[in-house]
């Protein structure tokens, strides 16, 4: 097993701790943003665990978990938690309904594609992020030396494709940009916006730094996912580990009490 294949074990351990930490807060405070963050982090952890497992052996349901929760859904659920924190409007509940319906639909599409997985191409020698997708080769593109290719018809044209686990044109792959755009916008945008507001008011430097760390962590995984989509999946696991570390550090930093917090009587109305 390479160092790269071992990284998801560390990401899983960090995410497990992070998830428990956030869900504990939900059970104490009963605030919905903690619930969505907790679910999103649990999905992230499940995706990391699936990567670690698939570095050892094949299991189609672990692959199901990896793609659905790790690649498609987790960013959107994390970002939705941030939306609940920042926006206290009724329309957010409508978005919640859409997110749940969209997630169920993505799960349905994933179930549809399960019997069609090209499991012959699976190997523990490569990262799952490097072998999940079937890719059409362009006119001047050459397949990597260790890749298995096939000639097939796609959109009415004869093409040569590098074989991957998910068949060419799987509808479930079209759902990931929707979830990831929403996740990126709300999670990173929300963290940047929060950091900016605290910075503008010149208060709570811990929350400025905490939100910068959260945004940086989320951006790293967004960047690594984009590279994966372009065929450079070898950076995904490192991106995930750094994302887990930065986001956990950012969350702890933002939640940390400040040394000069003082307790003194103030009218109730002035605090909320």
């Amino acid at each position, binding site marked *: 097993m390479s160092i790269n294949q071992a990284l998801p074990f560390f990401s899983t351990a960090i995410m497990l701790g992070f998830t428990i930490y956030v869900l504990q807060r939900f059970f104490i405070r009963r605030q919905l943003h903690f619930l969505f963050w907790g679910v999103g982090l649990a999905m992230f952890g499940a995706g990391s665990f699936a990567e670690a497992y698939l570095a050892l052996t094949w299991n189609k349901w672990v692959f199901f978990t990896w793609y659905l929760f790790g690649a498609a859904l987790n960013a959107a659920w994390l970002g939705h938690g941030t939306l609940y924190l920042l926006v206290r409007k009724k329309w957010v509940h409508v978005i919640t309904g859409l997110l749940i319906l969209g997630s169920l639909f993505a799960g349905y599409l994933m179930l549809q594609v399960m019997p069609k997985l090209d499991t012959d191409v699976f190997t523990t020698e490569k990262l799952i992020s490097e072998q999940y997708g079937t890719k059409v080769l362009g006119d001047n593109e050459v397949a990597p030396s260790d890749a298995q290719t096939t000639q097939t018809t796609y959109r009415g044209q004869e093409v040569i494709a590098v074989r991957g686990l998910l068949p060419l044109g799987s509808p479930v792959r079209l759902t990931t940009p*929707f979830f990831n755009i929403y996740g990126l916008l709300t999670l990173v945008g929300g963290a940047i916006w929060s*950091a900016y507001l605290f910075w503008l008011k010149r208060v709570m430097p811990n929350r400025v730094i905490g939100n910068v760390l959260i945004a940086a962590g989320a951006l790293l995984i967004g960047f690594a996912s984009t590279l994966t989509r372009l065929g450079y999946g070898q950076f995904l696991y490192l991106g995930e580990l750094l994302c887990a570390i930065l986001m956990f550090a950012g969350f702890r930093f933002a939640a940390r009490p*400040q040394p*000069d917090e003082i*307790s003194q009587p103030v009218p109730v109305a002035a605090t909320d």
Partner: protein
Amino acid sequence: MPNHDHKINKSHIPRNSLFFEKIVPSLLILMGMITICLILFALGVLTGIVHF
């Protein structure tokens, strides 16, 4: 009106701090720009402009 004990956060961003005056705003702008680029890329994938 009854008063209750509440925490007042008196923590403030230090004045003349290079980190908070220069680095943090630059990071926020940079991250905002990267976010927009990533979103545009994802939209490109969705619309078929970017092939993968």
